[in-house]
């Protein structure tokens, strides 16, 4: 039994069958990559995990509980955090405030009215947030406006915000999209470091094969809304079906 169990998931948008009969099992504490050509349904599938979309058929179970029909914030409170393709951060706030919000969400749940406490007096939250920033080497930038940072730093900050919640499952939607080679390698190192330090399961959607083969323990190849094969990176590399999906019938 994996931590994330996807059974017979199907999703249709008008005339387009975006997903059909998707079965997937992500093992606890593993790094599982989902790859596939453009339009294969990777992002649609991810959106079904986090509550942005509800599949027409099938089930998505996280830790033995169904996530279907739950709101994104409820699913997040169950222990699934998501990193977006373009970093979603609170750009009007400082780096420190960004991470503190995650710490508050973890401690206080989805809503708590505390209008007469003072952020600066929440020493445990401040310490947690500083520790988190230290872990991603951003402590020196804690007073910076999040909007004024480089894209690589924004990605790093988003990662810190997700990790500050101590999620069981981290979903990464093309974490290195649009990054220069050096930034990509930094991100790979960061993810490896995170994986070593804590018990966490990661599911990565990625185009960049370099990233996928550096990190993943299992790979699922998606094509036209259906899983083609699921195997270890070594076996995927030379798999004829994968080549066919990426390069077309002629290859």
């Amino acid at each position, binding site marked *: 039994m994996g931590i994330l169990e996807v059974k017979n998931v199907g999703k249709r948008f008008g005339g387009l069958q975006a997903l059909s009969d998707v079965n997937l099992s992500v093992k606890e504490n593993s790094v599982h990559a989902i790859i596939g050509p453009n339009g294969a349904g990777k992002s649609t599938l991810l959106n079904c995990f*986090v509550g942005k979309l509800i599949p027409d058929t099938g089930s998505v179970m996280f830790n033995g509980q169904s996530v279907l029909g739950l*709101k*994104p*914030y409820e699913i*997040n*409170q169950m222990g699934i*955090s*998501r990193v*977006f393709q373009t970093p*979603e*951060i*609170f*750009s*009007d*706030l400082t780096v420190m*405030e960004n991470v*503190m*919000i*995650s710490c*508050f*969400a*973890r401690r*206080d*749940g*989805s*809503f*708590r*009215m*505390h*209008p*007469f*406490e*003072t*952020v*600066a*007096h*929440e020493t445990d*939250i401040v310490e947690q947030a500083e520790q988190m920033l230290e872990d991603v080497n951003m402590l020196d930038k804690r007073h910076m406006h999040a909007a004024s940072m480089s894209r690589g730093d924004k990605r790093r900050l988003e990662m810190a*915000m997700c990790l500050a*919640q101590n999620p069981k499952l981290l979903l990464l939607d093309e974490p290195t999209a649009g990054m220069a080679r050096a930034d990509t390698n930094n991100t790979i190192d960061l993810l490896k470091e995170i994986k070593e330090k804590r018990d966490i399961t990661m599911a990565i959607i990625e185009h960049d094969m370099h990233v996928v083969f550096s990190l993943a323990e299992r790979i699922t190849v998606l094509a036209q809304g259906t899983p083609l094969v699921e195997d270890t990176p070594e076996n995927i590399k030379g798999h004829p079906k994968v080549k066919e999906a990426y390069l077309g019938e002629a290859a």
Partner: protein
Amino acid sequence: MKMLGLSNKDTRFLLIVIALTLLTPIILQPFPEGSSLAQFNAGYPDLMQRFAIFGIFAIGFNILFGLTGYLSFGHAAFLGVGSYSVVWMYKLLGYNVVPGILLAIVVSGLFALLIGFISLRRSGIYFSILTLAFAQMSYNLAYSVLTPLTNGETGLQVYTNDAQVLMGAGAPNSPHFFGIVMNESSKLNLGGWEFTFNNGYYFCAIVAILVFYLSLRIFRSPFGLMLRAIKTNQTRLNYTGLNARPYTLAAFVISGMYAGLAGALMASMDPLAGAERMQWTASGEVVLMTILGGAGTLMGPILGAGFIKYFENIFSKINDQVLHGWFAFLPDGLENFIIGVSHFFVGKSWHLTLGLLFMLVVIFLPGGLVEGGQRIARAFRNRKSKDDGAQARTQPAE
């Protein structure tokens, strides 16, 4: 210097605000009586009361609009509800303002809960339109449908045959706070100056200081941080396990209660309540005040409220006669021309001036008057540090 759970900086800030508020009757009376500039004085009770009351209205509005970014066009509805509550308490119990003010806060809070619960299902322009629709409905209800409750277009007021069950024999016959009558003042004549210390103003001022302190605490709280997070990125907020709806609803109710309190204070100064207080122009005014002063800043809304109320008062008092006095030194033709042009910007048409000022601020100072102040302060600091630098360089040469 730390006080009341505030940081050093905030404590200093609060003390400055308290000092300015309490000294307002002196600060706003800079010109001696009878001098030609006396018309620019603003130290009379009626105007100072309006500064404090609209300041409270704008501080509350800023908690919703400044922090969460949800632009409500219906906050005048809560203002009106507050006024009606107070006048009803006058009619039923007596002229002490306390029961009315408490009732106003409760009723406007409940009313805000209802309107907020429905309107906050949408965001952006749709939210604004929903609140506007609710406010206009409230206005029309108050104006005609609910006449037994609001006395329609005449407005609600106290009549001699009203119950006033708690009125003692010797109790004051106008709004008072445990015997302190609102419309009484003491005057102080110093040289050519005349200062008016009005009970009503000080009552409003102390309430304003209290609610300013509350808003300062909200700004610095985790709750305030969440509200700012809602303004900047709701997607990230949802995927960080936070539910935006109860936060925005709480902000909406709090700001509705502030508006109710402001309405209650209006009726505490002058025991009347009319439907026109709920009209959309009144809702729009508080939006202007907040943006003009600087949305999302602590001081902005208060500055904006003071600015608009001051200029409303000054410009609307300038009539053609005053203009003739000013431009008498010019040749006749030119004088008439200038007065003809100025005519459109003063007196009853002073809104044109307000519109122009508002446009200038929004275009050149998107952060409002507060940003203007910050820019000036920065310019001074830069010049000073440049001077210091110049001295540092020249000194070794000597």
